[in-house]
């Protein structure tokens, strides 16, 4: 019924090219596609731009991707954390580019990419350092900044269950960036704890329709 394929992690990330923009889901560990990130490290693509809420924690996952020297630029809302020493070191050494985007603008810019919106006016960050270089406009007496879409070549997200048509449901706050990133990328890979048969999921409760999902990778939950 759809083009979605059930793939191994290695096959699903095989098409990622050097220089690609990769959207990586998750907020903390909730929704973090750890198996897909490990596959991306093994895959070897480099010169990547990573869009994610954070810039890696500890020494695994995104931090390991950064440590391997594969990332040219990070677009995120909150790079600096108690355990973000890999990113911190690269940044202070001038070895990685950083674009800090307020969390809501980050989500909305990806939402715009998926929704075919050319740009939008957001009130967030008006009058701050993060407004520098952005076009401003007063609408009905309120000031806004012009924000442009963030598109991904590939999105790597974590979901709960996916059916063979690619429909996804999430669990609790692990939903976070998944639905937005799935729509914002040319190719979307979802790590799920179970692949269900078509028709198993409640059509009223599907959060990401299969049209947005190219690969399902089943992982141990």
């Amino acid at each position, binding site marked *: *019924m*759809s083009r979605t394929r059930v793939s191994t992690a290695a096959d699903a990330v095989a098409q990622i090219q050097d220089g690609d923009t990769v959207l990586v889901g998750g907020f903390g560990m909730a929704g973090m596609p750890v198996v897909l990130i490990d596959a991306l490290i093994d895959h070897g693509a480099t010169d990547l731009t990573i869009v994610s809420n954070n810039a890696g924690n500890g020494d695994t996952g995104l931090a390991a991707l950064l440590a391997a020297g594969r990332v040219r630029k990070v677009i995120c809302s909150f790079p600096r954390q108690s355990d973000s020493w890999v990113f911190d070191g690269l940044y202070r050494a001038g070895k990685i580019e950083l674009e800090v985007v307020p969390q809501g603008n980050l989500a909305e810019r990806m939402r715009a990419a998926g*929704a075919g919106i050319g740009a939008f006016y957001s009130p967030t960050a008006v009058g701050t350092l993060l407004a520098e270089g952005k076009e401003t406009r007063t609408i009905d007496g309120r000031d806004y900044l012009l924000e442009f879409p963030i598109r991904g070549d590939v999105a790597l997200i974590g979901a709960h269950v996916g*059916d063979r048509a690619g429909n996804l449901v999430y669990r609790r706050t692990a939903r976070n960036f998944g639905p937005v990133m799935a*729509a914002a990328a040319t190719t979307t890979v979802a790590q799920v704890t179970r692949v269900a048969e078509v028709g198993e999921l409640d*059509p009223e409760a599907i959060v990401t*329709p299969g*049209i947005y999902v190219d690969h399902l990778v089943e992982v141990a939950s």
Partner: protein
Amino acid sequence: MSGPLDRDEMARIVARDIPDGSYVNLGIGQPTKVADYLDLAGGVVLHTENGMLGMGPIATGDDVDPDLTNAGKQPVTELPGAAYFHHADSFAMMRGGHLDICIMGAFQVSARGDLANWHTGAPDAIPAVGGAMDLATGARDVFVMMSLFAKDGTAKLVPECTYPLTGLACVSRVYTELAIFHLTADGVVVPETFGIEFDELAERLDVEIRRPPNRE
């Protein structure tokens, strides 16, 4: 084919040209019939802009549910794997370029792919656009199904649309009872005719048409 296509044959031909795995939106009216010739269980997923993927055939009898309709407000059915979403999400899906093909009727299509299908331009007409402009702009490919000539005998595939436009340079194919037209960067290519010779077709149109490259 021995003669011009009837409406069912046109629907079948359009369905034939939709690749398996496509996500497709069928416009109100004639395009709705294409569903009858698609493999909805195994191949093609239908989108309806009022908020659904995985739409099935028209509902009849006990299957009629007033909460489940297509964009033409006809009762329809739900297929396994269906998903519902609200209007903003539905048009985001469309505008974001995620639908492969949308099929619409038309008053006129220009050789460059401009589409006119929402407004006759008559001074007393009440304008009503629905989702036509969103679909024209949003779908990756727009196929038009229409009769090639209007009731007054004038061609509806034209060098320039005279009716108010729905979208610019958006149509990639036009299916008519007499021929299929591919609107390409290299001009209007006619891969098939039905009950008419290419030369006669060329004669009756103001738009320059070509045979496919491999037959030239």
